[in-house]
């Protein structure tokens, strides 16, 4: 039995690795240049968001800056504050929960209304987290991210025992790592605050992006079983990529399309918190088109060839 040599993807495997490494390097550079990832809910402290009612817009009412507002709050309460303008709202944050017991959201509102007499304010959002809660959430999110990564690698290893379980698991894990990295870089690029919802989005993206690798390796397993030792490993991979390329692109396109529509609808209707989940998923799934077809399969071929030489 033989395979026609129309497409020879595996002869370019070093190029795929270089592309993958270049993307990782670019991601690291972007992260370093953008500074440390912004901590969101994983940080401790208190936050209050007051919507300013229609009477006067915030910009009309500000001969004074928001730094002044924070200084005013510090002067009257004795605690550290920072204040920010966010469209038609004023966001007040306390960097620690030290003064939380002593000052209420209602009191802050009164102080702000005294500072901006033209504005009528209403509390729309409040958050307070002590250090232990924040650490608990951060720790859980990171550990469960690692658990998800390992669980998927182990599952793939078990399911693809017939074509070399651990070799397949490592190849898929490498592709999965690149997809997760793409999701991480998207968080840095769009300056999303790193919190538990973003971590959950990355775990969900892992579950979906690994599907593409499973499609490819399922086909490799089938062709490997069909052709056996009579055909070179690289040719089996070439044929599998050719057969599954369309499947991978169509399945991932459906997910990308749904996520794009969601991000647009959420942006139009002004729902916060959806974009920061959609974007990492989009990046991870988009990346999985390349990593599953080329990075994972080329790594698998190299590992298998080395194994066979031994």
């Amino acid at each position, binding site marked *: 039995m033989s395979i026609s040599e129309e497409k020879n993807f595996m002869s370019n495997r070093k190029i795929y690795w270089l592309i993958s490494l270049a993307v990782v390097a670019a991601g690291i550079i972007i992260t370093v240049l953008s500074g440390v990832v912004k901590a969101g809910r994983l940080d401790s402290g208190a936050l209050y968001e007051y919507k300013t009612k229609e009477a006067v817009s915030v910009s009309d009412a500000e001969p004074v800056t928001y730094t002044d507002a924070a200084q005013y709050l510090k002067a009257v309460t004795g605690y550290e504050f920072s204040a920010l303008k966010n469209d038609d709202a004023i966001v007040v944050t306390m960097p620690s929960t030290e003064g939380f017991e002593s000052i*209420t*959201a*209602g009191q802050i509102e009164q102080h702000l209304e005294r500072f901006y007499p033209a504005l009528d304010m*209403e*509390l729309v959002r*409040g*958050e*307070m987290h*002590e250090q*232990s*809660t924040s*650490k*608990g*959430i951060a*720790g*859980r999110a990171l*550990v*469960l991210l690692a*658990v998800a990564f390992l669980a*998927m690698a182990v*599952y*793939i290893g078990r*399911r693809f025992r017939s074509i070399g379980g651990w070799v397949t698991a490592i190849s898929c894990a490498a592709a999965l790592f690149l997809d997760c990295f793409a999701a991480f870089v998207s968080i840095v690029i769009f300056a999303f605050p790193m919190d*538990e*919802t973003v*971590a*959950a*989005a990355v*775990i*969900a993206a*892992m*579950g*979906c992006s*690994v*599907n593409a690798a*499973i499609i490819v390796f*399922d*086909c490799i397993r*089938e062709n490997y079983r069909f052709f056996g030792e009579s055909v070179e490993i690289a040719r089996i991979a070439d044929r599998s990529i050719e*057969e599954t390329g*369309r*499947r991978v692109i*169509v*399945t991932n396109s*459906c*997910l990308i*399309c*749904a*996520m794009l*529509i*969601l991000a647009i*609808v*959420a942006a139009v*209707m002004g*729902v916060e*918190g*959806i974009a920061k*989940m*959609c974007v990492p*998923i989009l990046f991870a799934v988009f990346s999985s088109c390349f990593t599953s077809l080329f990075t994972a399969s080329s790594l698998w071929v190299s590992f298998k060839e080395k194994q066979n030489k031994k």
Partner: protein
Amino acid sequence: MKRTVMPWFFILTVLIAAFSVFAFAGSSWLPGSPDYIRGIRDVVWEHDSGGGMSITFFAVSADEASHDAAKRSADIIRSRTEIFDIVSASVDYDEKEKKVFVDLAWGEGQEGILPETLMTELSRPADVMFIMGTPQSPDNMTDSDQFVLGGGNILSAKVEMMPESTQKLIMVGLNGAGIMAAESLRSDFSDKTVTVWMDNECICIAAAGELFDDAGNVRLCADGGGYSSDEADRIALYLSNGVLPLELEAQSFEYTSPRSENVPQKVMLWAGGISLTVICLFMILYYRLPGMVACVSMIGQAAGIIACVTGFLNFDFIKGVKMSVPGVVGVIMCIGIGYYTNVIINERIIEEIKKGKSLDGAIEAGCSHSIISAFDGNITAVLAGLIIMGLSENSGRVTTWLMKPFVWMFPSVSIESLYALGFVLVVGSLLNIVFGMLATRPMLKSLSGYSVFHNRWLFGGQRSRKEGLR
């Protein structure tokens, strides 16, 4: 030979359509029908969508935090939420970590309650003291003031109308020791003033003779009259629930003011509808008949997800899942991955047709060869969903127990909004497997059985001259 065709495509399409109508609209639209089936309007939303609050309380004194104390505190807090007319309240506790997790959703048209007010009222000890004398507070008692009865003596409290008044009073029932003390106070010190305190709030000042009746009950009324209806209900609820066994302090909270409309629900419906339509059109144009089958299957899956979220059948013992903003992302994600099994099947059918197999043979081979790949792909999504469900801790959930060995070293936290994302991902992936295995294959086979549809081109193959002429 004449082909016998089971009309599975039409049977399943009608069944899926009927199921979808009920899953989305419920049964209330049927004239004269009771609400047996929950629709999308019955979805309960987390505080991040319609407004509400989640609070984590921890016990200040670690020694007191026995299992019973933690459970009792959670029960008392749950009943205290009635004071604020909160439509949806879930209260859970972690006995080991000495924490009580409270999750509240505001009702439609509910006024905003300041977070501090809510936290103070829910976690106040409600320690009741009857003091003979008029101290400024229970902490500032003088030598002439005397403690006579405590919250431990109270058995019940109910609100009654004051005679010839619109005001209300609270009738408090006492235990044996309390009745004995009340009788001696009434007979020996009837002119003496007794003040009744709940924490540092004076709730009643009256002479002992007026405060205690002949049967040993306490007639609580405010200084100089009765209580307003709300005030009486609030105090009676605190008194009947008893003292909070744990001294609780808020460790974290998240507050969202009441919203005039549920925008995340609108986002879910619009984004879901648009993505279903766009992807369905693409599938039909790209895969033709199998694309149409994929759309029917996808509509069934979407209805299945909504049915699982609402609980579908309107019985008290069937509980749905609280939806949240991450849950909305999960639903749309499931629409995106819902075509996974069908795409694999359709691509395999096209491949088999290209290899020269007959249409029936290609459908059979396509379906049977795709199942393992579809199963593996969906199981990884199920794994991801289960792990996300484990991020949110709740004492009664299997996922909390499953994830505990990995996160035992971290303090327990409640992130309820993520539970919906994990749940939807698990349900969506499982439905994808079920519909792929049980619906797609019979529908494709049944369609190919009709001579009008028995055409390779309609199943993604190239149009042959013979078929092109037909």
